[in-house]
């Protein structure tokens, strides 16, 4: 449920960019999703497949890059990736003196489009996972 509104927003950005480029079809969409947003990739894929039906983006492949949060430790100076649930201490030295940045971004990075294919269901059908 949480991903429905997010996926609607993704689709409208994708379609806007595709139409602006005069594309006939979108074959792939590259997303960056921060690990600390709580969004589930499979759920975004599920909604995208359904919401994109009958649009230029129907059948497009979603490439989702998870962007981890980054933790830093004041004690040892180390940096480490962070996924929820957070650990209360530095995984490198065990110090609790850590802080966490990033991991909250959610971006449409780029799209891949094809033009000039009059038969969207034909040979040029985009590969699926």
């Amino acid at each position, binding site marked *: 449920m949480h991903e429905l509104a*997010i996926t609607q927003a993704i689709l409208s950005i994708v379609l806007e960019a595709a139409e602006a*480029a005069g594309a006939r079809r979108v074959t792939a969409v590259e997303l960056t999703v921060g690990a600390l947003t709580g969004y589930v990739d499979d759920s975004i894929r599920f909604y995208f497949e359904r919401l994109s039906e009958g649009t230029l983006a129907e059948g497009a492949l979603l490439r989702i890059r998870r962007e981890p949060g980054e933790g830093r430790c004041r004690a040892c100076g180390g940096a480490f990736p962070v996924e929820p649930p957070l650990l209360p201490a530095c995984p490198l030295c065990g110090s609790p003196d850590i*802080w966490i940045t990033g991991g*909250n971004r959610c971006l*449409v990075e780029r799209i891949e489009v094809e033009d000039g294919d009059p038969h969207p269901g034909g040979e040029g059908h985009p590969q699926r996972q």
Partner: protein
Amino acid sequence: MATHIPVVKAILSANDAVAAENRAAFDAAGLLAVNLMSSPGAGKTSLILATLERLPPSLRAGVIEGDIASTLDAERIAARNIPVVQINTGGACHLDAPMVRSALSHLPLPDLDLLFIENVGNLVCPAEFDLGAHLRIAVASVPEGHDKPYKYPGMFQKADAVVLNKADLMPYIDFDLSAFRHGLSILRPGIPLFLLSCRTGQGVDEWVGWLTAHLRARRGDHGG
């Protein structure tokens, strides 16, 4: 031929644009808008009611109530003669900026000093959707446990302050306050934390004092 088109657009940029319009409307009215976010049952409505009770009488508040369905919370507010607008999201698990914008025409904004926006009970989505409020408050409660900042970091990373409600239950529940504080400190060092109980009134004055200080500072900034 495949063509790559760079987009690099924040997924919620359309929402954020409307949020900026809302913020401009709040600024024009000279009010302080506060977005309250929590899981269901943490006490958002109770916090609004407790706050209204302790506000200085010279300050007028309004409320936007977000709910998936029902007007129960709005009725509790309206019983106090406070201007309130109900937004039923029809199943959506959060408020977004366009929903808030459509509610604004039903409120006497220029007459208000404070506007509370009660989000839908949920610890994930509301954090992502900027509504245009000046302050985002995460409301947690003791029975939910101290692990919430660790499990829902996005909510606490984006909050300007945290209210820990039902503090009167602390002696009866295995709630590790230092673990809760530590979780907050690694996500948002220095974030204000208010331990309070809407039931007993403990801590409410400190919270109200913090809010009204923000209102004064905002008006000072804008020469109002």
